[in-house]
């Protein structure tokens, strides 16, 4: 090996990228060529500057806790929705409920940081969700349909939790993802043939309608509104906001909410 060849391999050598053959050829050249050895040593020293001389910056402790907090938030929908544990929809008694056609929506709303602007629910309903009758009951669709399996998994990492809900007794029918005024909403709908109530669960935010009235039922407080053919019930549970939307009577919604609690 001559000097120019050795110089050409200098950085690959220092970066530990040389194959055994080239490595031993470079090393034997360095044993006999003091001039190359000096440049190699120089470059090695130069390289170590960046390891030795840059102060060891450690991440601020708040950063670590912020990350862990956000991970907990990610996990939260799996742990704090009582659906799979209490299974209020799937009690045998409910099968006899005089309600025929069913679609249950689960909505998990992740508010992005700039999601301070909220729109009343009626606008949400008008603009983004379409309800139509079918043999499955009420089928809701959005202006921005994407399949739940790919999008939810990619954006929210939710596939496992959906599977868990599906195992809890409902039949997973599919779902969509909506973009509603800066919020990402993941929807999964289940066919249970029991109740016809869509349930939206929001982590934060103030989803209110102008014409909302406060209702007290079995010592709990709810907010109720009617928008077109829908009745809406809003309440809080464990820091989450629940919004039930249905064509059923107010009493059915209140009873539904009370059974969940």
């Amino acid at each position: 090996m001559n000097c120019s060849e050795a110089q050409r391999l200098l950085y690959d050598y220092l970066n530990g990228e040389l194959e055994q053959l080239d490595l031993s050829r470079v090393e034997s050249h360095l044993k006999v060529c003091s001039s190359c050895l000096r440049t190699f040593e120089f470059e090695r020293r130069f390289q170590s500057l960046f390891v030795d001389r840059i102060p060891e910056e450690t991440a601020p402790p708040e950063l670590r806790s912020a990350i862990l907090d956000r991970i907990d938030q990610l996990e939260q929908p799996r742990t704090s929705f009582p659906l799979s544990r209490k299974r209020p929809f799937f009690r045998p008694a409910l099968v006899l409920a005089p309600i025929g056609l069913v679609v249950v929506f689960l909505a998990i709303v992740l508010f992005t940081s700039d999601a301070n602007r909220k729109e009343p629910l009626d606008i949400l309903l008008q603009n983004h969700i379409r309800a139509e009758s079918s043999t499955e009951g009420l089928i809701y669709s959005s202006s921005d349909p994407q399949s739940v399996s790919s999008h939810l998994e990619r954006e929210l990492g939710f596939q496992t939790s959906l599977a868990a809900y599906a195992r809890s007794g409902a039949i997973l029918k599919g779902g969509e993802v909506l973009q509603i005024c800066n919020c990402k909403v993941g929807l999964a709908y289940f066919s249970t043939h029991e109740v016809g109530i869509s349930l939206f669960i929001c982590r934060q935010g103030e989803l209110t309608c102008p014409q909302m009235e406060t209702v007290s039922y079995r010592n709990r407080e709810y907010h109720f509104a009617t928008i077109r053919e829908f009745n809406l019930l809003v309440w809080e549970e464990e820091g989450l906001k629940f919004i039930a939307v249905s064509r059923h009577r107010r009493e059915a919604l209140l009873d539904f909410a009370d059974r969940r609690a």
Partner: protein
Amino acid sequence: MIKRKDSPSAQGDNRKRRFEKEALLHLDAVYRSALRMTKEPTEAEDLVQETFLKAYRFFDRFESGTNCKAWLLKIMTNIYITEYHRKSREPSGLTYDEGEVFSLYEQIEGKEGKRAATDPEKRFFDRVMDVEVKKAIEDLPQEFREVVVLSLLEDLSYQEIAEALGIQLGTVKSRLFRGRKLLQKNLWEYAKAKGIVSDSPER
């Protein structure tokens, strides 16, 4: 004994514990690289948060036993490139084969070596300040800074860097070569500005 099925929350806890042990371990390294890339502590913190959140979501796809730090840095550079620096992705205009390439070694040996009886390199390196080393990296044009941070600071292989940045292996090598030369030039300029060395012949 009653066997209990893993509830979703228990699965989440396991995953979180594994994530803390394998990925969060590299928080400082990822933070340092983010700091070198963004040059801005608050932006670096945002970038790091996004990186770990994304990593957590895709943690199932990380193959245990492979280089977790490289995997995290790949996620970080991806986010950085696509979200933070989209606007400044245009090449700096520096080409990789400009005829004259700066050599710090020749500068030191040539200019200083003649008069200094003792190790001129040692003299130079001893006088370089830590903050200048950092500045030398931060002053690099972005496309060189990326490869320099991943290679010199984080010790990723050419292959890992190529994958992280989505560029060819040959491009990694040429940018790294050029990046090192620019680093040397930067350090030389700082030294000159401080009057430690000079381009003019010694009197």
